[in-house]
């Protein structure tokens, strides 16, 4: 957009005077030249002046359009900033939710797969094997006559082997000399 320049007399082209003016008698022309208001009227009636005035009006209209565009931009910007603010609040909420879930997850993982938990579970499992073989022996003592001794001893021996293996693993686990999942 170019800069508006003031109109000068060369651009205005007020001369030659209109035929109606130049044909005036000299004394009337003198009066015309002496009266500012008449001169003003003459200048305003010129096409070049009108065109210049129209340029200024057009420029003002362009500025008005730009201002309207700025108003649109501002309202758009406001809407945008409100959305951003809403999303920021949502982010804050999500962060809090994340912290809660993270804590819960840590607790759940711990209760499921914590080493101490698993070790105590394994210990219970070994004690269960020991109890199983003991109950097998007791059971044979009460009803032994009806069963084959060799078969019972094989089952008992296998059960004891399982227990001893578990016990050994547990001992080594205590000493942290095992591998596997952990």
């Amino acid at each position, binding site marked *: *957009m170019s*800069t*508006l*320049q*003031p109109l*000068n*007399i*060369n*651009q205005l*082209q007020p001369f*030659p005077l209109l035929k109606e003016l*130049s*044909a005036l008698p*000299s004394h009337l*022309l003198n009066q015309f*030249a002496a009266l*500012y208001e008449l*001169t*003003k009227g003459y*200048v305003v009636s010129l*096409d070049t002046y009108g065109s*210049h005035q129209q340029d*200024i009006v057009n420029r003002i209209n362009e*500025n008005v359009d*730009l201002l309207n565009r*700025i108003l649109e*931009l*501002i309202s758009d*910007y406001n809407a*945008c*900033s409100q*959305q*951003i603010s809403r*999303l920021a609040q949502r*982010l804050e909420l*999500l962060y809090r939710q*994340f912290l809660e879930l993270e804590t819960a*997850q840590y607790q*759940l993982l711990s209760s*499921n797969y914590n080493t101490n938990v698993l070790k105590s*579970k*394994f210990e219970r*499992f070994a004690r*269960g094997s020991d109890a199983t073989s003991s109950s097998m022996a007791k059971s044979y*003592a009460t009803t032994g*006559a009806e069963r084959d*001794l*060799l078969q019972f*001893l094989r089952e008992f*021996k296998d*059960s004891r082997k*399982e227990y*001893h293996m578990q016990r050994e*693993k547990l001992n*080594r*686990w205590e000493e942290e000399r*095992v*591998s*596997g*999942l952990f």
Partner: protein
Amino acid sequence: MSRVTKKVEKWLVSVIQPQYVYKNVVYSHVYYFLTKYLPQGFKIRTAVYTSDLGVPQLLINLNGSLSTQTQLIQLSIWIPHNYPYADDTHPHGDANGVPLVYVVPTAGNTIRPGNNIDAQGKVYHPYLAQWHSKMYAGVTNNEFLLINLMNVLGSTFSQFSPIGSSITSQGPQLPPKPQMYRDSSLSLTPLPQREFTGPALPEKPSLSPTPVDSTPERYRAPPPLPTQMNYNSHRVSSVEPQYSESNGDYLRSEKANSASPDPNHARTYSHQTSIPQESSIYKEQLDHVQLPYSKDELQRKKATSVPSPRKQSVEDLMDKVTLQDNSVHNTDQLERLAIQINAFLDPNNEESVDHLIPQINEYTNRVMALQSQLEHHSKQAHANLEMLDSHVKYLEGRIGDMKDFNEELEKTEKLNTTGSDLVFINSSRSMPLDELVTLDLILLHQLYDVCSDIKAHKDALSLVGGNFKSQGELITDSNLDSCVKAIRSLSRDLFWLEVTRGEIAKSMGLDDQYN
């Protein structure tokens, strides 16, 4: 080379992100430039650049002093939005790919236009031309960098300084220019008339040493006297297109010409305009101007330098009378009229429409700058919104996954508390607890297996003999043979197991512990 601060880096990214096409390239080039030239005092900012087409754009501007062998030259470099690749479809005159370099004169200095620089300080250089032709999208060319541009400018300006002192030397006196050339705002069309038939031009008024008003002095002064300028004949010969369209003005002028005034005026005029007739520029312009006379006529007029009224035209007695009257007394009248008109047109006059022009121009500039800045901020805000929105969506997805995972863990926890011999990995998968722990080595596993077996055999033997915990012995009269057979079998197995254990321990170097 020095490091660019994080703050500048972030600012640069925020400026480049919304508007620049080749963001990575712009960032790397400008960053590289800054590492070298920030310590030398170069500054970076964004500013509104108005192209030759009048289009305002918010561009990155690098400004600072380039040190040559002889002096410091203030430079202003603009980085176009499609930097560094010029686009052929871009309108000519607009900022297009290649950086725009301007030399900025410091106080007391002026631009010295030359081969590489125009009067506005804009720099033209074969390097920039090559940049325009050789750099196009997709091509990687390390020859065209801002750093290299600075080197090229440095060597060029060392040979020819674009800056000179504003004090000019007293050279030979140039011939006076015609009035027409002094005023660039005037159209070219009146030139021929001034050469041949126009009146004598008025003396250009001397400029005020400290002009307060932006209007040139000669526009504020009263117009030349009719006897000197003779507007009637001036307008007759004037063949501006606008003039022929303006409600019969042209006809009126023709009539005025037919009643051409005193030939003395023309003689005076031709005498005073003898210099423009020699001007080659003036001759060039003649070829492009539509004249109401034929070329032969013009030649004749030029040869005689005396304009002759058009005898063929119809004589308008009314005009003739008027002009004859005017010729007697219109000097003073028109001078007074011109003074009145100038008084009305004076921008300081509140009645003049031009009174508002400075304000309008100022508001226009402000509004345009504001609009440009707001457009930029709005684009940035929208880009931020999109980015934030995508982040929020992504995080919502992650949070949803976490919720699902936690639910699964809760189910798994219930299963793990109920199942004693299994470890549940999730609600549908599990593994035996016994397999949770394995021994370090396969050989070690075999060793422990054998040891466990040995202990199991010993337990079985103890059970038979009544030494297992508090159990009674199993040997009775009825199963004596079976017991003997079982003990024999267990003892034999035990022997072999102990042998096996010894061998494994031996191979592992554990003799002392297991033998």
